């Protein structure tokens, strides 16, 4: 088997994640989709690391995870506070930006 298949897997997961962002309405699921996309890219990075024989790819993947963690913390906090005021976790209910 060619390790390139990991890249194909990564591409597939990324696409699924992206479609999820576009299709799902629940803000939490949306976030999960984003996480999936990040993970997909991490997989690609790790594969690249293996391809080049250096560890830099893994480092970047590591940083990605950290950033993802930070993002999730803040993002979920935002979701919670939005839910408090709007009683809804649907992103379609927060559409005041059009004004």
């Amino acid at each position, binding site marked *: 088997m060619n*390790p390139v298949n990991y890249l194909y897997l990564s*591409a597939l*997961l990324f696409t*699924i994640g992206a479609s999820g962002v576009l299709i799902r309405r629940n803000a*939490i699921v949306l976030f999960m989709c984003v996480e999936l996309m990040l993970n997909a890219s991490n997989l690609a990075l790790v594969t690249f690391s293996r391809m080049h024989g250096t*560890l830099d790819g893994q480092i970047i993947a*590591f940083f990605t995870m950290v950033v*993802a963690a930070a993002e999730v913390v803040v993002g*979920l906090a935002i979701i*919670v506070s939005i839910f408090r005021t709007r009683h809804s976790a649907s992103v379609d209910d927060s559409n005041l930006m059009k004004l």
Partner: protein
Amino acid sequence: MTGQLAAAAVTTDLAAATGRLAAAAGATSTGEAVQFWVLAVIAVGGALGMLLMRKAVHSALCLAATMMALAVCYMAQGAVFLGVVQIVVYTGAIMMLFLFVVMLVGVTSEDSLKEQLKGQRFAAVLCGLGFGVLLVAGIANARLDHFTGLSEANAEGNVPGLARLIFTRYVWAFEVTGALLITAAIGAMVLTHREHVKPPKTQRELAAQRVKDNIQLPPLPAPGVYARHNAVDVPGLLPDGTIAEDSVMATLRERGQIRDVSQAMLRRMAELENSTADWLGRPSSERPEVAGPRKSLEPVPANGKAGAAGKDGATGEEGDE
């Protein structure tokens, strides 16, 4: 949790071995191939599950599965540390956080299947397909025939190798990441924290306020109907047979988790009267309709937010906290 770790440790050894083996060739061993295909099916299945499940909890669980599969993939590719971190941080911490929030905002609330934005779903699928095709085409076109393998880089072990890089070349980024994490933590606190701008009201003041506002002077009605249904999600019935929504706690109302038994109760009462009438021998013209006198009273929709709109916002707010 411990089980997972143990399993991961086993796989690590295995993956390291296969990785070393494959390094020379540019193709992988059959073992890794088998492993990959199994994991790939799990990962994609999990991802699709996440995408398609209507309930957030299910989505979260599916995602967790995908992440575990990915963690194994990392290990198989010689990124042992990352694989562990993936399981500990992602599956362990982040996904738990997700689940907490899901529980907080309504575990059973589902996305309705009806798409509100015209053409959104179709366009999204189209874009996704197009993007996928592009990515695949890109990868296929790239010259990726040579794999160096990590045997050299991981010569003194994966963790020391990473550490060497993190604390030398990437130390600045590492520090900044730390700052980012701190900031994120503080941000989360700030976002979710509610400042009391004035001292909390005492019970007396609240009572006075209620009198002044002329809202719900007596205590709220208790939930439960007769002795039959005494669960907190069963609203009490008003004298006319309709439900008293106030009798259910606000969080349940918010989630639409009110179990409406009024119809059943009415039906039962009618039966009771009928049997009483039978027993007394009354003519049938005087008997009430068994079908129930209040057709109009529909059960509260499962995920409707009618309850949230609330009879009055004040009590809703109080219950929410």
